[in-house]
């Protein structure tokens, strides 16, 4: 359903926004040497209790037309992608304690979606109605990139 991992990231971070998060931290670790890719999204939103978590993880994508409740569907989708690519998927959440989502996958797996347009994802998160600080850490074997909306606002200039 999602063709790019960056779409998954946007979807998960939009959940953070719905959970009234003030801060969302996105980390991407990509290692060719170790042959893995790990996505990690952590927020300080309202969090979920065990029953809600079970429900959102249990939802299955259906192509059936008609009304459905898409809430939480994104987590199930990411789990599907991660497991399909020999990875692990893990969510930690508790009411008032925020939510943390970790999805790993084998970098070289033939079904692994490309990371895609990560900058469009970040731009979309910068354009939300609510004030949510967005941080990104992207690391590969050779490169490292970080982005923080707070930094852009307070320092008022582009720093790389």
């Amino acid at each position, binding site marked *: *359903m*999602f063709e790019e991992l960056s*779409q998954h990231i*946007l*979807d998960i971070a*939009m959940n953070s*926004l*719905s959970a009234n998060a003030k801060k969302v931290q996105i980390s991407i670790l990509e290692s060719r040497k170790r042959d893995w890719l790990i996505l990690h999204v952590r927020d300080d939103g309202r969090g979920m209790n065990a029953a809600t978590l079970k429900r959102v993880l249990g939802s299955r994508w259906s192509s059936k*037309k*008609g*009304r*459905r409740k*898409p*809430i939480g*569907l*994104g987590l199930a*989708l990411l789990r599907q992608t991660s497991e399909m690519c020999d990875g692990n998927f893990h969510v930690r959440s508790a009411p008032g304690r925020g939510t943390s989502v970790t999805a790993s996958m084998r970098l070289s797996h033939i079904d692994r979606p490309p*990371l895609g*347009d*990560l*900058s*469009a*994802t*970040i*731009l*979309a*998160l*910068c*354009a*939300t*109605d609510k004030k949510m600080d967005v941080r990104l850490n*992207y690391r590969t074997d050779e*490169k490292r*990139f970080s*982005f923080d*909306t707070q930094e*852009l*606002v307070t320092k008022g200039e*582009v*720093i*790389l």
Partner: protein
Amino acid sequence: MNLEQLKQLKEKAQKQIALREGNKKYRVVISMGTSGIAAGAREVMKTMLDEIEKQGLDDVEVRVTGEHGLENIEPVVQVEEAGGEKTTYAEIDIEKAKKIVSEHLQKGRKVDNLAVGREKKKSE
């Protein structure tokens, strides 16, 4: 993603944050829930941002929201005018997004064949 794209990202994000200041004539609201993203809402948003910049329209603000409850007609783009009038555009793709910018946002002419329904009061 290369370094150049990332540099551009910082510049673009900054512009976008700066554009939030002040009251704009038009406010474009794009729904970015799961079904919206799957239908291409993110690409629509990017196209609109690019077109708005290309045409130098500085009286337009682009915002992203969660699910509108209109998941069958995503991507959904709403144009809100300073006077309070709202137009809802449905099933928008890249070409239609460009058209909304060049007609509605630039010339002030609604694109009637892309718009859906009439302004409705929320039945909540």
